[in-house]
């Protein structure tokens, strides 16, 4: 009853993104907790976890913070920051 108004609004896409973020969070948790190291494309599990986090951050920026519909300068700035910080973190973990 309290939530009945939620789905009346145009946030279907954002709801799918939210569910994807939850799945990615649980996947990171699974990768970190698995007894056997879970790599991906030959990368170690620490790098995989950081790449999952970077992808989640991009989803939040683009869809929740509406950078997707914002001016190009904001898209370039946020993507550049995310690329640099993810690359730097992966460098320390490789």
């Amino acid at each position, binding site marked *: 009853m309290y939530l009945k108004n939620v789905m009346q609004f145009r*946030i279907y896409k954002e709801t799918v993104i939210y569910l994807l973020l939850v799945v990615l969070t649980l996947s990171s948790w699974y990768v970190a907790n698995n007894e056997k190291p879970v790599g991906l494309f030959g990368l170690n599990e620490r790098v995989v*976890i950081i790449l999952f986090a970077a992808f989640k951050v991009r989803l939040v920026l683009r869809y*929740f913070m509406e950078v997707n519909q914002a001016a190009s300068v904001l898209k370039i700035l946020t993507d550049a920051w995310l690329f640099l910080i993810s690359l730097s973190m992966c460098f*320390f973990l490789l």
Partner: protein
Amino acid sequence: MNDIRPSKIPGGEGIWVFICGDLIVFSLFFLVFLDYRSVSPELFSVSANSLNLTFGLLNTLVLLTSSWFIVGALDAFRRNRLIAFRRLSLLALFCGVFFVVLKIFEYKEKILGGVGLTTNDFYMFYYVLTGIHLFHVLLGLGAIGWLLIASRPKICCLNSESVESVCVFWHMVDLLWIFIFPLLYLVA
């Protein structure tokens, strides 16, 4: 009448200058943390294993849910649905308060276990990073509370830019935690 379309810069330039500054500061914290970790990986690994992963996972899910409620609240605001806007903002606020309560329990568990800021380098980063993030959560909760108070008589009392600013700030709090959670709880 509110503008139904998102702004060219959501919330305006001012909030993004603040957000960019915050992201740069936190990025430096993350890199310094990883640099310290590369010096003593054993110590960081043992210390990170002593953290309660359930708290970290719950905190992440609670903040993601809160962000989703705020997305709905902004959409409701743009459609002039005052009740839905207030209800969804309140749900986001509850999630934020739940995050703070979880953090208090986590800190209590650690402090009662004799683990403090000066125990070792890992815990110094743990308390500083999560503490500064918690401060941002409290700021965000104050801003959402202000939205609830300002929207009480009529939704027209709020302008689109201020609502967008609060929403963007709240998402940034979520975004920072998305990096803090794997760094402290999973990767270290």
